């Protein structure tokens, strides 16, 4: 008998459901961890907030964490971003758009704000990036 919780009863897009339920890289780095840059974005309309933390080593993301308060889609966006960012350099990070997030997570129109939340959180990280992000 299949597990009930695998059945996605609310019919979220499959990538959203999987990431919401597994939430890889949820959490945060201990304060003072070298190379960590934190960005945060919020959507007042949807009362959601996403915090993204990227830990840089030699110009690339070595590890990532996220925290989110919001609907399952915004949580999934945080989880996807944290996973995708690992191994990327600044130029690759800057190339991510909300449209790409929507495509990857199959986010429908009425949830477009969740993808924008992700893009904004990543931009906030990039805005706070020192000239040389390597520790």
């Amino acid at each position, binding site marked *: 008998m299949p597990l009930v919780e695998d059945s996605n009863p609310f019919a979220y897009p499959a990538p959203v459901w999987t990431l919401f339920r597994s939430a890889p890289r949820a*959490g945060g*780095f201990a304060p003072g961890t070298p190379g960590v840059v934190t960005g945060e974005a919020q959507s007042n309309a949807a009362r959601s907030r996403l915090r993204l*933390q990227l830990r840089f080593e030699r110009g690339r993301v070595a590890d990532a964490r996220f925290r989110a308060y919001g609907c*399952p889609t915004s949580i999934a966006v945080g989880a996807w971003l944290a996973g995708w960012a690992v191994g990327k350099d600044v130029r690759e990070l800057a190339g991510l758009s909300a449209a790409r997030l929507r495509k990857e997570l199959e986010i429908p129109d009425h949830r477009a704000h969740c993808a924008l939340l992700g893009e904004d959180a990543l931009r906030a990280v990039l805005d706070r990036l020192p000239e040389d992000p390597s520790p």
Partner: protein
Amino acid sequence: MSAVIAPATSRAARTIYLDYAATTPLAPQVLEAMLPYLRGGESDPLLWANPASAHGPGYRARAAVERARAQVAALIGADATEIIFTSGATESNNLAIKGALEFHGALRGSRRAHLVSSRTEHRCVLDSCRYLETQGVRVTYLKPDALGRIAPAQVFEALTPDTVLVSLMWVNNEIGVVYDIPAIARGLRERGVLFHVDAVQAAGKLPIDLREVPVDLLSLSAHKIYGPKGVGALYVRRKPRARLAPQMHGGGHEQGMRSGTLATHQIVGLGAACALAAQRLGEDAVRLAQLRERLWQRLASALPGLHRNGDPQACAPHLLNVSFEGVEGEALRASLPELALSSGSACSSATAEPSYVLRALGRDDELANASLRFSFGRATSVEEIECAAQRVIEQVRWLRELSPFGKDG
């Protein structure tokens, strides 16, 4: 140096149904009672006949309808002649409210008419009131206090010389608060104002005796008490006579108040469900209240930041409504896919709007949205309550841990 947090991983192998206030399963004995009127009985193969037909099988079908009428009446201390069968409580509420106002001339504009209801009524009552407003009826929507209560004095103060009807529910379907219907009914009788009560969540849960409580019109539904969906009843008092204008015109069935061929099997199902409810009333109420308190104690002892919605001193046995601080409502509901429960009144979606009932109690949108309505039934076990409590505790803790609010890292 980095903390990864992981969602709770315990899993339930099957759905735990905690939405009995939305609907209940058909009781086996109710199904058995209905079947002969769908497919014919073993000794009487024509029981599916039209109960309005003037022949043997028709008379026997009619007899079944009348037995059911007596069973419905018995559950609420009424006379069988005071029961009108309808398609369900939405129709009963529409017929009571619109029928009473129309009978009293409110819709023809021949008199000024006023109606009193509350902000926390079921949507079908509120929408009937709103329709009447478009027809020139003035409506006062009483505001409950923070516990969802409406004091009898509040009702009486809202009356005007033009008040035709007061319509209030006995038990609120979202928060389970029980209104003091006996006191309100006595006060309205003294003042000569007609009183309609939506008793859908009260029937079979609380004792109702209309010989003692002077309600004029009272709505019932079968599927909330282990009967079939699609059938209900409206109690219409004979002494003094509550008069209604029919809302369904046709062959003059149901004393002319509700035309349409009687659905014998549905009506027999409603009757059987009422008989069973009357039998089990005391036992069910005690057990359900124990389950409710057990769940509340488990949640409240494990989690800070909970709000029990409604009045713990006057709540129906089968309902518990809780708001959870620090979690987002949709994520909360989606994180509990193995629990069949509701965020308010029968919302099928995790993305439901915040409840207007909770907002009427003064909860802000965010907290109103982060609320769960647990409702219990005859099949709910202690194990299910324990398992559900555990899941809710785990998921609320997880979502709070996941939240960036109040955290440095």
